[in-house]
């Protein structure tokens, strides 16, 4: 009886020591789920979800504080991926919160006064300029987050949807017209 108890205690102490050691030795820095969620998000850093960037939103989702349908730039596909990742049900966008056509910001260079306010607002440093110098947007780096629109004191920034050209054209889902085979 005593020996059995001792064996059990011994085993539990040993396992406890192993677990305790590995908890310190193999400690995972940060929450891996947050990184996985962040990888799904489109990285526009637009804040449309109500959080200041994609990473904070990912953290909020991981903590269970935020819904998965708050990211319009990610589209429904993004919600689907998040739902799959988190093992929850797909949830459509709220009323009027759906994704818009992809656009990039454009600065009207005649109106720009060179105040640098948009430079500070851009989360991906996609605006080139300096104080009292004209600013311009690097269209290829612009994520279309619209964060530069609000700070502009002269409203010289507008969003321009990216037109379709041969380079970004893609095949459409095959659709067929329905043919009536017999009159009722």
């Amino acid at each position, binding site marked *: 009886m005593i020996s059995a108890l001792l064996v059990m205690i011994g085993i539990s102490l040993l396992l406890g020591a192993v677990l305790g050691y590995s908890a310190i030795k193999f400690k995972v820095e940060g929450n891996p789920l947050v990184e996985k969620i962040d990888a799904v998000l489109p990285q*526009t850093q637009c804040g449309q979800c109500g959080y200041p960037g994609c990473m904070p939103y990912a953290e909020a989702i991981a903590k269970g504080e935020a819904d998965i349908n708050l990211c319009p730039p990610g589209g429904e596909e993004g919600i689907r991926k998040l739902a799959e990742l988190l093992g929850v049900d797909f949830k459509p966008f709220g009323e009027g919160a759906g994704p818009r056509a992809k656009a990039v910001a454009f600065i009207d260079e005649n109106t720009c006064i060179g105040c640098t306010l948009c430079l500070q607002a851009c989360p991906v440093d996609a605006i080139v300029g300096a104080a009292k110098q004209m600013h311009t947007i690097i269209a290829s780096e612009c994520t279309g987050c619209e964060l530069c629109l609000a700070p502009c004191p002269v409203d010289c920034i507008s969003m321009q949807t990216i037109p379709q*050209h*041969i380079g970004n054209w893609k095949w459409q889902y095959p659709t067929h017209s329905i043919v009536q085979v017999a009159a009722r």
Partner: protein
Amino acid sequence: MRKLFKFHGGVHPPTHKTESSRTPIVQAAMPSKLVIPLHQHVGNRAVPTVQVGERVLKGQIIGRPEGRLSSAVHASTSGTVSAVDMQVVAHFSGLPDLCVTIIPDGKDEWIAHSGMDYKQTPHSELRQRLREAGIVGLGGAVFPSDMKSYSHKHKIKTLVLNGAECEPYITCDDLLMRERANEILRGAEVLRELLYAEEVLIGIEDNKPEAIAAMRQAVADDGHARMEVIAVPTLYPGGGAKQLIRVLTGIEVAAGVRSTEKGVQCFNVATAYCAWRAITFGEPLLSRIVTVTGNVERAQNFEVLLGTPVDELVAQAGSKADTYKHIMGGPMMGVDLPSGAVGVTKATNCIIEASQAMFPPPQAAMPCIRCARCAAVCPAELQPQDMYWFAKGKDFGKTQEFHLFDCIECGACAYVCPSHIPLVQYYRFAKSEIWQREQEQQAAEVARERHEFHMLRIEREKQEKAERLAQKEKAALAAKPAAPTPLPVAADPNADPENTLQMRIDSAVAHSNMQMRIDAAAARAKEQVATEQPKNTDALTPQQQAEIAEIEARRAKFHEIASHPGADDESPKQ
């Protein structure tokens, strides 16, 4: 007799080749204008080098290759550039792309050009010539030939020349081989030299006996060593590079593997012909053989200047009135042209005029009955019915598990489908969706990196600002000893011991030589006094002094008047 191999599947659509292969190649008439797209090849679009109104000569470069994978574009004849703008091109999308429009002057005046002896010229120079001559794969893939004509990593044993021409209706390679076999073979020798290949195998489908005979005759006449013309069975898509390599050599080129890794490289016969012309005569790729067939009076092959509008070309073959669309390429893989105004490009091997009787609109698709006839004919040994299933359900991950990207879009599956499902359209849709997603993913990665750097930069700037302020404070404190008042050397006993800045300053000050600092500061002060600038009122001429006195007097008078308003009505208002 060489042992031939088989590839999986394949179909036997009606060939319709005899309509256009009975008459020799005809030189097409000079068109009224040339619409030359600048993106006729795989890779980067050529950059226009001409301006509107400029006179160009035949063979002059109008689009310079941009980047590593690109090719030059030339003026097909002499004339005047009338536009450099977006025009509809031969593309599935029907969208416009950058084109150069040239109005020919009818003189057909060549730019200065000269050939070279390929045996005496370094290979790098030959490849540069191919690039500048705009030589691309003329079988339809339009991949720049200079990129294909070397292999550093792998030893090339076999050069395969593709004269199979498996698609129905098309006979341009057939006629080229019949009429210009010698030059094709010389081109093959150039390519063999570039690749250090041992043997050359020329695969021609056995429904072209005249071409096979002509090529065999040319091999014998010119005494080409280790070069063999091989008749391969007629089976669509036997002209696909992987399929032809399989048939001729038995080598299976696996997914994601280049044939060069297996020691084989494949070129179209027309590419070899144009490579020969470019190297030996310095003639860039300005024209190609185009089969015009289908609903026309005289189906035949034309030698057509690149950029010739399709409308003008088909008129020469007598396009019939009930033609409702032009198909560029064959009926299996061809593109429905968005308009007859598009120019002939390097990829245009055939124009099929389609009438409702010949090419009825596709029948309505019925549900898939999983008969697996598509799987039986698939030359890539895929499971088309499964790929279709997942593409239809937009489950793109699953389509990739079924090796969607090994699909060569030959259309054999759709050809045999009893339910008339446009299978290839589904695969193309799935492919372009996957590509777009990959691009978006890459863009997101870049955005993430830039955002992280942005945050890092802001943090760094904050830190630098704090450091600058600290330095300033420190400097201000350190400068105080220069003042005549007693030095604040000793630490303020009332200072907060946790004030690290104060502590740092204290230690710095304590460690420095105070006397030296005081001396230096005094010297600086003296220097400032000595070099003090004279005021602008010093050293004035008597005349200037007089002027000043006058002005002062006037000012005094005004002051007096202003201080007694009403005394003088004519006083100037202040």
